[in-house]
């Protein structure tokens, strides 16, 4: 498994080095705002915050509450497009 983790580290480094990771992040954010994912999550955040009280909200609470929902709410089209781009990147650089 050390080989696998080594490979992961190498790929991550390559993604960061080439700036592809930033580009993907920006693309994902734009897509998610576009499709209303952000508004949905914000509404959910409001519920969470009301539940906990305005003063007692921590980032950890939010993360634990929001992340599962966020993951589930990503539209399939966005997910597919992103996966496609990652795959293309890997294919491009693995053959070098």
């Amino acid at each position, binding site marked *: 498994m050390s080989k696998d983790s*080594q490979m992961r580290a190498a790929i991550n480094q390559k993604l960061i080095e080439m700036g592809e*990771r930033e580009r993907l992040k920006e693309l994902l*954010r734009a897509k998610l705002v576009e499709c209303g994912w952000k508004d949905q999550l914000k509404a959910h955040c409001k519920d969470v915050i009301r539940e906990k009280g305005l003063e007692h909200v921590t*980032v950890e609470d939010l993360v634990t509450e929001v*992340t599962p929902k966020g993951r589930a709410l990503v539209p399939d089209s966005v997910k597919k497009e992103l996966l496609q781009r990652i795959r293309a990147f890997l294919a491009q650089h693995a053959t*070098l």
Partner: protein
Amino acid sequence: MKMEDMPLSGPDNTRLEAMVHDIYSELVEDACLGLCFEVHRAVKQGYFFLDETDQESMKEFEIVDQPGVDIFGQVYNQWKNKECECPNCKRLIAASRFAPHLEKCLGMGRNSSRIANRRLASNNNMSKSESDQEDNDDLNDNDWSYGAEKKSKKRKSDKNQNSPRRSKSLKHKNGELGGSVSSEPYKYNYNTGISYETLGPDEVRSLLTTQCGVISEHTKKMCTRSQRCPQHTDEQRRAVRVFLLGPSAPSLPDADAVVESDSFDIPDGQTLMSRLQWEDSPDISPTDSASSKASTNHSDSRKPKKKKRTSLGLNSAGGGGGVGGSGCLTGGSVGVGGSSSSSSQSNISLSTKKKRPKLSAPSISSIYDDLN
């Protein structure tokens, strides 16, 4: 380990696919984390719930969508009643009239700058005289535009004195003033003319000494304009006088006849004085100045009149060429001349007017009685 060494085929394909998904979920978690930070920051700074309010205020500040009102439910033509304070003269001006007023008040624009220039020019002459007290007051009040406008009106009237409209208005004022000041029975309707049949010989005579008097063919009324009215000729006037007064009547009494000078000496002298100091032109005929003054100054208060009366003799002596004689005497002589026969009266009348014969009214009436 280099990527080139990575086997991408075979069973590694699934591994690769897993890695792609891992990268994807990392990205999504990143986005979630970013959102969480953003929301948390908004909560702690206190602006997270700013965009929503309670139901009451939502209802209170609802956008109004009705005809005639703006989105706040106010009537939108309220500005029509607004008034602005002029920064120059401190008066309250209706908003719709503010721009024109300011133009005049500040002396901008073509006409206003003309007025201002004239004002400046006349100020130099005026400063020497004490008679224009009101204008000096205006100066001190910094309300110079008003004074300038007044002045310009006077000037205008000076220039337009020969137009028929002017002389008509003169008659008007003449009648009112004559009725109040002197004992002459001036109570006819001057707008429609006078029907000579209803008048006594005294009245006819006094009318003819002051007015054109030509009888219209259509209305059978006498013309009430001045004796120089442009509508009728001297021949017509002469004919009327012969017809009404007989062949012994004066051919054409001078315009500055007794009655007029009697009731009008005060404004007359005023005009002459102001005229002298404004334009330095003493050669203007007294009738004209009378006409211009009659319309502008007839509502003057008594006080300035008195003031001017004292300085009147001085001024008239200078302007009128110094014809001697006391007021009473000259007034009497003019009365005789005006009603009997005189065409050479005009140069004397200038001075007699200014001598303002206070006693002339009774003396004139007595003369009339004698004549009849």
